């Protein structure tokens, strides 16, 4: 069973529907016991880092995520959920993350030319870093996925498995052992996105 962590950030309807679409048993929950019993954990998130991280830490869901990550349970952070896996974020201040991925979250505007629009929003092509990761076993390089973000994962070279070109190569996906993160929204990326979720659900 896949547990989508519900910590009061954003609407999880589409995300839950996408797992149902690929035939995976899914539960949307904030219950720590249910999350501890899940084979896979999804950390979603939209909105601001500070607000989301406060909710994770004050509810102690952060402890459960870190514990399960250390036990080897596959975890996938999506969009802001990916950013929360990092050590810290510089989105309006400086905020601690879960520290499961080495690196930090910084504003896109620091690295892209000023004529490009922010947020980076729309369909963009994935460029694989190093060899193709298992997460991408059902898709091809240059397949497009849907992005909406103004901040990106920086100083995380060891973990990057895909980037998207937007005046600079922006971190699109990361992995550290059993912990995965996608900056884009697989649940809004058509068949390509569903195939990424399918590959994640097949992780041991």
């Amino acid at each position, binding site marked *: 069973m896949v547990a989508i962590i519900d910590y009061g950030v954003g*609407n999880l*309807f*589409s995300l839950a*529907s*996408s797992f*149902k*679409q690929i035939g995976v048993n899914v539960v949307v929950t904030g219950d720590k016991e249910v999350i501890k019993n899940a084979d896979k954990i999804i950390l979603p998130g*939209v*909105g601001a880092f500070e607000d989301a991280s406060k909710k994770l830490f004050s509810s102690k869901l952060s402890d459960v995520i870190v514990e399960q990550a250390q036990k080897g349970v596959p975890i996938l952070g999506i969009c802001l959920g990916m950013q929360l896996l990092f050590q810290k974020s510089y989105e309006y201040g400086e905020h601690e993350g879960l520290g499961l991925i080495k690196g930090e979250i910084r504003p896109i505007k620091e690295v892209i030319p000023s004529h490009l*629009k922010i*947020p*980076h*929003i*729309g*369909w*963009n*092509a994935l460029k694989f870093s190093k060899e193709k990761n298992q997460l991408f076993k059902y898709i091809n390089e240059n397949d*497009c996925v*849907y992005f*909406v973000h103004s901040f990106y994962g920086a100083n995380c070279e060891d973990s990057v498995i895909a980037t998207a*070109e*937007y005046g600079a190569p922006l971190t699109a996906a990361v992995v550290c052992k059993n912990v995965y993160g996608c900056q884009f929204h697989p*649940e*809004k*990326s*058509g*068949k390509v*996105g*569903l195939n990424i979720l399918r590959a994640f659900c097949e992780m041991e």
Partner: protein
Amino acid sequence: MITKRIIPCLDVKNGRVVKGVNFTGLLDVSSPVELGKYYSDNGADELVFYDITASSEDRAIFTDILKEVASTIFIPLTVGGGINTLNDFDRVLKCGADKVSVNSGAIKNPSLIYEAAKRYGDQCVVLSADVKRVDGVFKVFAKGGRENTGMDALEWIKRGVDNGAGEIVLNSIDTDGVKKGFDLEMLKAVCDIVSVPVIASGGAGKVEDFIELFKTLPKVDAGLAASIFHFGEVRINELKKALKDNDILVRL
């Protein structure tokens, strides 16, 4: 880089897509769910669902339909029509919409854009403007293009973006339905004053109109149309291949 988007728009009334459609292979051509899925499977980059019903009873039907669409289609969904309050935003976002398009609601209550952007983020708020030339000046029209508000369109759009609209749908009443191409002059005027994505609407009749749009105005991000897609005059997958052959970046 970000691809150019092709967006079909579905007007929904009493739970059905209005304006005829002629697709072979669809069991029920006026079912929003079936038609949405067809577009999603055939290259649409995003869908716009427009609620053109008036009564609150019909609004509940629309909301149910929206939920069903959102649970079967995994591309971005924009919802418009009858969005007058933050509660309306909340209602459609909970059903799986990713973006909410405001038009007359923002004209009646200009602080709606600001309030919604503050609560849901700029990327969630789309300002849709129906614009027509009056004595050579671009004016904003309300009530589905029937009523001249007297407001200068460029000022209105600029103000909307300043208040937090993350995207503009510019519908030219002058070219709408004429099928002789998008209103490039009006679109250029808007692209010159805003830095958020601009979606062109009104006037497309054939594939070449989209090529001309993106070639002439590289700052336009997307092309939106309804009946030419519904009637199969332009097939989205063929359109996108033609765009690619013309060196316009699209998702295939």
